[in-house]
């Protein structure tokens, strides 16, 4: 019984952090295993989002208000992590935008957004170059 309640307490008490870790792992897994470039970007975004939740969770206090016009003695959340993460969100959006723009260019150059096809093309070109062919290009 004690084990159960301890376990539940750990689970619920750190619920946010469990979600963060789960999201982080999902994101990394998608980035690493998926061959589709768009999905890779989605994975990256999930990874970054998990960190946003990490920051916001650490600033949160149960039952606290926002730090705007706080009455004397009231509990309020720490605004600094929120501000920090706002910056990180902007960074994340720019990264995603740049990644998508690159994918558009890659699609135009390689006519595909699948990693293995691009990789195969590159390896072929690399071998040709090593044998001395194709250096006129």
């Amino acid at each position, binding site marked *: 019984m004690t084990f159960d309640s301890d376990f539940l307490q750990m689970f619920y008490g750190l619920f946010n952090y469990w979600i963060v870790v789960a999201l982080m792992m999902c994101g*990394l897994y998608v*980035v690493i295993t998926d061959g589709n*470039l768009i999905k*890779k970007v989605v994975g*990256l975004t999930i*990874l*970054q989002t998990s*960190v946003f939740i*990490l*920051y916001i969770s*650490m600033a949160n206090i149960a039952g606290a208000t926002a730090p705007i016009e706080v009455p004397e003695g009231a509990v309020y959340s720490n605004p600094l*992590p929120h501000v*920090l993460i706002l*910056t*990180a969100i902007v*960074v994340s959006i*720019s*990264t995603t935008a*740049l*990644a998508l723009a*690159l*994918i558009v*260019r*890659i699609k135009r*150059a*390689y006519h595909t957004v699948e990693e293995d096809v*691009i990789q195969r093309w*590159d390896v072929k*070109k690399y071998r040709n*170059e*090593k044998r*001395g062919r194709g*250096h*006129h290009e």
Partner: protein
Amino acid sequence: MKNAVGGIMNSVHLPILQVLVPLLAAPLCLLINHKKLNWIFTLLVSGFSFFVAVQLLMTVSNSGPLSYHLGGWLPPYGIEIHIDQLNAFVAMIITAISTLVLLSAYTSLEDKNDITQGVNTYFYVAYLLCFAGLLGILVTGDAFNLFVFLEISSLASYVLIALGKDKRALWASFQYLVMGTIGATFILIGIGLLYMKTGTLNMADLAARLPEMADTRTVFVAFCFFIVGVCLKMAVFPLHMWLPNAYAFAPTVVTAFLAASATKVALYVVVRFVFVVFGVEFSFTIVPLQAVFVTLGALGVIVASLVAINQKNIKRMLAYSSVAQIGYMVLGLSIGTATGLMASLLHLFNHALMKGALFLALGAIFYRVGGVSLKHLQGIGKEMPLTMAAFVIGGLSIIGMPLTVGFVSKWYLLQAALEQSWYMVSLIILLGSLLSVIYIWKVVEAAYFKPALADRKPVTEAPLSLLIPIWILVLANLYFGIDTNLSVTTTEQVAQQLLQGGKP
């Protein structure tokens, strides 16, 4: 007018101007939108940053660290710009190399084999942003600002790499983007965990508060995330996969700039966090950083050198050689003594000089020949004697011949390893040098002892605008190999300070 300039040069606002000027210059470039004016403007901005960096280094060497409070808010609450000898020294290298690289940029951008045409303006914009980001990482005293500047410089460098003519540049840039973003996210996690534990983001404040909570798991995990993230950016051996392609397919100006600056700044971040923020004791006793770094550094030196030998494309070969040189720097850090740290910083300085010279020389060859595989280089020694001579001297520097800078840093590195009786490590350092003889020799052999291919058009010596920066760097390679006064004394002081006064 003279007074105004003097006023700026003596102003207390120098630390922030160094970052602010390139950052604001970037959008201005977009407005100017003129080939030549953009180039002159960017060159001036970079030159200004160089003079500021020299000024700051002199001030800091004479009268101790500078602290600039952004917006007048006091440090633990406001954002602080903290300048000491360490970052002023690195900033001086970065700005100097950047100015030299920019000298050759105008001619190099004309090359339609090297860079997509009609993107001049965007090149300068991205370049200035990257430059501003790197300087920002160097001067900031705030952990979160470090992340933001890191992302500014990274985003700009992805763009710079994607400007390459070869379509593989796009793919290389995308791969770098994925790796770089994972690295940056890890850094963000590390900083978040540190903030969670200490409630501060100011580096000096962190350094003061961390020792009492050094045993907690949060700090341990924060350290691991942070170091792995920075090592990704630095391209330490098993995390270097993005580097060879990115360097090989980026325009040569960009390669020369990134090779001489981006990884160096990442090394600076490692030094700053390992030796100042977390402190040597934490990093080397609680975290087994020494074992990790010594293994990765040694493996990096050997494996990357062996791979470099097997390359036909000289740009890619030099990229792998960079990974090997980063191995040396990591080895220097892992020793953990003042001599080791000093050797590492010295190699940071010297490697920027030699890789800058080599990549710029390759750029000149590319400009004339239109390719940099071994076949292209055949017989080039007679046709482009000055460029090839520069390449050979740069190559000797990589090998570590006496009278070049490469010798100086390897000498101190060996000394540091022998002081600790690490005979295996000293053997590996020597072996790495021998391996670099092989890959440099391959180029020399092709250039001087093989006839030019029949289907290659005869070429002439590179234009003066490319030769001048190359030879300034080459002469710097020789000068700092003979007169080691500036580099050795500065790095020695820095290393002493970090190991003694690292913990306030």
